């Protein structure tokens, strides 16, 4: 028989409170549903403040926007001027010099695809924005990362700022950028820099902090000054982690360029995706979306290969010669294109268009598999989503489960929970017993129908237990703010949808990550798939799901999973693959079985990376919520969309801040859990 700790009594108390409030609140009804007459609306004040800000500083931002437009304008002009064959050759040469023939062939295939599908001009316009925004984002990100590494105080400001930028969904700050910088290409540029630099900061700090003390010491002993210590010791040692950040920055910049094309102003590939999406042209939008994914993979592979090469080679005279050669051949190709028009502009009769066939294929698929698809959707909906959302109490009905939830069944359900909990208690697993009761009660009442006071108290209690009083106060203030400004119902819907999505992502994603870390074949297959998923415009991810599973939450859930699973896989694999080899070796020599090695050695050691992955999964899931508003989910995402549609800064921004609050609380809790686990294991704490 285990003793129940005081904190577990608190949880049990909360459970009782939930049941009382839910079933007979009496005079405490205000703690179940927050009364609308108590709501303090802040949207009007925010709009007034924004108007004042624009009046005061508008010209400054307009001037910056005007300046920023020139590099993009120049890049677009150059790319539009060059014949496709020359651009194609330059990319092939870059790929060859960076990595070798395989990448050069990939570059050729990607470029031929862009030209052959008939989207060359649009592709080049998007590429121009990306070519300008990625270096800007990396410069900002690296600078802030280094600053944050050296100054703890700066880190305190930078980290929440990053969370804000990554969690306030792109849509929400498109509107203020539009208001401040004016209509045009600048909106996409600014938005993509803002959205894309945080991963570089995060990974720069993580990488620099992970440099082991011995290496630094060795550098100091050999007499390095501060600058040398940074550039010759810390930076090279942290480079692999920083590059992971650069990689993510590139991907994020591209996907933001696409989202920003909702504003217009540039005839780019994102606009093409959006207008075909609007017409529900599945094939066309997928083909255009694939251009973006190819572009991302190409840029990613080239930069990655260049950065990991030995420095000595790139400054070598031989390399200089090869650059001369590249320019000479590019010039020759250009001259040739003056004679052969097909090399200057892709001939129209060679444009291929598989879109109609793809559309027919999808239609046939839906027709033939309708019953199966319907069954999948309905069982996910009836047995998983509805119980979490509105509780068994409403979800179980003859129409859904085939029987009604009679009082007898309810009693049996409660009894079963108590028996399991009691059994756990006897087996000295008090925590497990309490958890079973809590999950059981939540499933019975439902997450969105749970009294707001109980949900708030639960988050505060969880924050207190994992991270202490400060986070608990922050959680209380943050969630309390959402309650008071009247956003609680939308917030609860968002928490429910995102929670289910993140849970599935984490379980599935870590599994795939572990597999990929142990099998080169799996890794080789998985990498392009997750790169594609991450860089596919989010709208395009939606289209096949909505064609198959229709408008609604199930489609939204699938889209969230498709997008947010990427960091879970990526970070797990990265963490497992970058473990100190000596520890693995000594564990193996001590005779650990593969299973022991994985669960007792590798996973605990990779925990910081895996937790960073969970952290990112939550942030990705939340940012996908605003996109799922496009398929009719309610919640905070829908509010942001409404704000953008009405040009209402306050409505969009409060919802955006609401999402950021939820994300940050979830983020801090997961970080703290990870920290405690590491301390328990006696590991070096690697908290970002």
């Amino acid at each position, binding site marked *: 028989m285990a003793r129940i700790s005081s904190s577990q009594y608190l949880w049990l108390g909360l459970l009782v409170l939930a049941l009382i409030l839910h079933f007979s609140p009496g005079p405490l009804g205000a703690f179940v549903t927050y009364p609308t007459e108590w709501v303090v609306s802040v949207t009007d004040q925010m709009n007034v403040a924004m108007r004042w800000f624009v009046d005061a500083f508008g010209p400054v931002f307009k001037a910056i926007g005007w300046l920023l437009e020139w590099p*993009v304008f120049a890049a677009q002009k150059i790319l539009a001027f060059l014949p496709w064959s020359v651009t194609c050759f330059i990319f092939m040469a870059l790929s060859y010099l960076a990595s070798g023939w395989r990448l050069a062939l990939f570059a050729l295939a990607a470029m031929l695809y862009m030209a052959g599908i008939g989207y060359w001009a649009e592709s080049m316009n998007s590429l121009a924005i990306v070519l300008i925004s990625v270096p800007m984002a990396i410069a900002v990100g690296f600078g802030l990362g280094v600053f944050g590494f050296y100054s703890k105080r700066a880190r305190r400001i930078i980290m929440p700022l990053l969370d804000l930028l990554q969690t306030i969904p792109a849509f929400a700050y498109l509107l203020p950028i539009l208001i401040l910088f004016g209509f045009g290409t600048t909106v996409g540029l600014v938005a993509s820099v803002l959205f894309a630099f945080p991963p570089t900061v995060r990974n720069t700090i993580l990488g620099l902090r992970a440099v082991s003390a011995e290496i630094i010491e060795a550098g100091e002993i050999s007499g390095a000054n501060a600058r040398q210590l940074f550039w010759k010791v810390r930076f090279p040692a942290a480079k692999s982690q920083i590059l992971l950040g650069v990689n993510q920055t590139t991907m994020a910049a591209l996907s933001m360029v696409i989202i920003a094309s909702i504003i217009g102003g540039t005839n780019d590939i994102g606009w093409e995706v959006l207008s075909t*999406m609007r017409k529900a042209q599945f094939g066309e939008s997928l083909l255009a979306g694939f251009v973006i994914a190819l572009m991302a993979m190409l840029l990613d592979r080239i930069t990655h290969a260049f950065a990991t090469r030995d420095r000595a080679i790139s400054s070598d005279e031989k390399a200089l010669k090869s650059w001369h050669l590249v320019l000479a051949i590019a010039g020759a190709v250009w001259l040739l294109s003056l004679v052969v028009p097909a090399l200057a502009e892709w001939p129209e009769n060679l444009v291929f268009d598989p879109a109609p066939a793809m559309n027919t294929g999808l239609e046939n698929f839906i027709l033939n598999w309708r019953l199966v698809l319907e069954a999948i959707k309905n069982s996910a909906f009836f047995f998983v989503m509805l119980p979490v959302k509105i509780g068994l109490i409403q979800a179980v009905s003859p129409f859904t489960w085939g029987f009604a939830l009679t009082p007898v069944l309810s009693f049996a359900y409660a009894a079963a929970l108590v028996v399991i909990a009691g059994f756990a208690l006897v087996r000295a697993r008090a925590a497990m017993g309490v958890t079973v009761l809590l999950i059981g009660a939540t499933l019975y009442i439902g997450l969105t129908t749970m009294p707001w006071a109980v949900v708030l108290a639960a988050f505060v209690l969880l924050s207190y237990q994992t991270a202490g009083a400060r986070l608990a106060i922050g959680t209380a203030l943050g969630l309390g703010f959402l309650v008071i400004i009247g956003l609680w119902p939308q917030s609860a819907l968002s928490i429910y949808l995102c929670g289910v999505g993140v849970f599935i992502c984490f379980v599935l994603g870590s599994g795939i990550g572990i597999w990929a870390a142990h099998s080169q074949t799996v890794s080789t297959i998985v990498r392009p798939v997750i790169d594609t998923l991450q860089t596919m415009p989010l709208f395009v991810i939606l289209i096949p799901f909505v064609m198959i599973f*229709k*408008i609604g939450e199930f489609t939204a859930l699938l889209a969230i999973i498709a997008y947010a699973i990427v960091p879970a896989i990526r970070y797990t694999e990265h963490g497992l693959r970058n473990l100190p080899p000596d520890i693995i070796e000594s564990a193996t020599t001590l005779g650990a079985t593969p299973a022991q090695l994985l669960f007792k050695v590798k996973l605990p050691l990779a925990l910081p990376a895996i937790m960073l992955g969970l952290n990112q999964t939550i942030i990705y899931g939340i940012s996908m919520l605003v996109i799922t508003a496009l398929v009719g989910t309610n919640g905070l995402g829908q509010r942001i969309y409404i704000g953008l*549609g009405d040009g209402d800064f306050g409505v969009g921004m409060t919802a955006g801040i609401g999402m950021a609050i939820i994300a940050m609380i979830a983020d801090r809790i997961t970080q703290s859990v990870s920290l405690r686990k590491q301390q328990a294991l006696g590991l070096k704490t690697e908290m970002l």
Partner: protein
Amino acid sequence: MKKLILSAAMVAFMGTAHAADPKGADTPIKIAVNEWTGQNLSARIAGSLLGKMGYKVEYVTAGAVPQFAAIAEGSLNFNPEIWTNNVGDIYPKAVESGKIIVSGDLGLEPREGWFYPPYMEEKCPGLPAYSALYDCAQAFAAADTFPKGRLITYPADWGTRSSEQVAAIGLPFQPVAGGSEGAMIAEMKSAIAAKQPMLMMLWQPHWIHADVKLNLVKWDSESADCLAGKNQSKGSACGFAQASVKKIINADFAKTWPDAVKFVNSYSLSNDVQNALIKKVDQDKVKIEDVVAQWVADNESVWSGWVK
């Protein structure tokens, strides 16, 4: 002045027919190009005719809502097709302050209402009268709305008229927000492919009507000042007031291109013309430039009065 970049340098020089170029012929007129084919046709036909008058024209892609900020500040000059039912907050303010000038109706007659595929008339014989929906709600039901019928409404940010209408006339239907136009059209297409029940708030002219046949639910009466969900009940329902489609220009337009204003004021297109052209672009996959050029060549008698 902002530079708005275009890939294919879509600047039209077609002023050969005129001996003297009109005032402002050197400054390109920037015409907004939105996300849907119908508007693209309206914009390009207008642009092509302005080109015939001797003006330079640029087509600039612009989101339907963000474009109003751009027109108000003069980055864009002209949009011949603004649907007044979905304009957000910026548009009415800009019109009120005189930054955007409305120059009359385009001539399109939008039809909004609840559409259904014809096979639903077999499952619900009383259609197209709305009164039939009361008895055959179950024929329109889906798993998540059963036993109520399922009505796909506009995305939540386009207003809630359908939901209010359902409540007002006490229809046993569950309104489900469509999310986005793309999602709604995907839904409609997949329902028709599988012959599943479908009732959806939609509008005309829209290219989907060139693709599939859809029927419109009929109300007891029709009137221009009919408000959805207000003062309506079972037995006396008028449905939805119909939107109008306006041509708009920015404040300086008349100063910069005085003669072009006359064209803008007289320019008009009908549902039939637009639907036919939309079909050519979206269904027959003819390039939009060719469709426009063909129409302009064939209809000189229609537009010769506008360009004088």
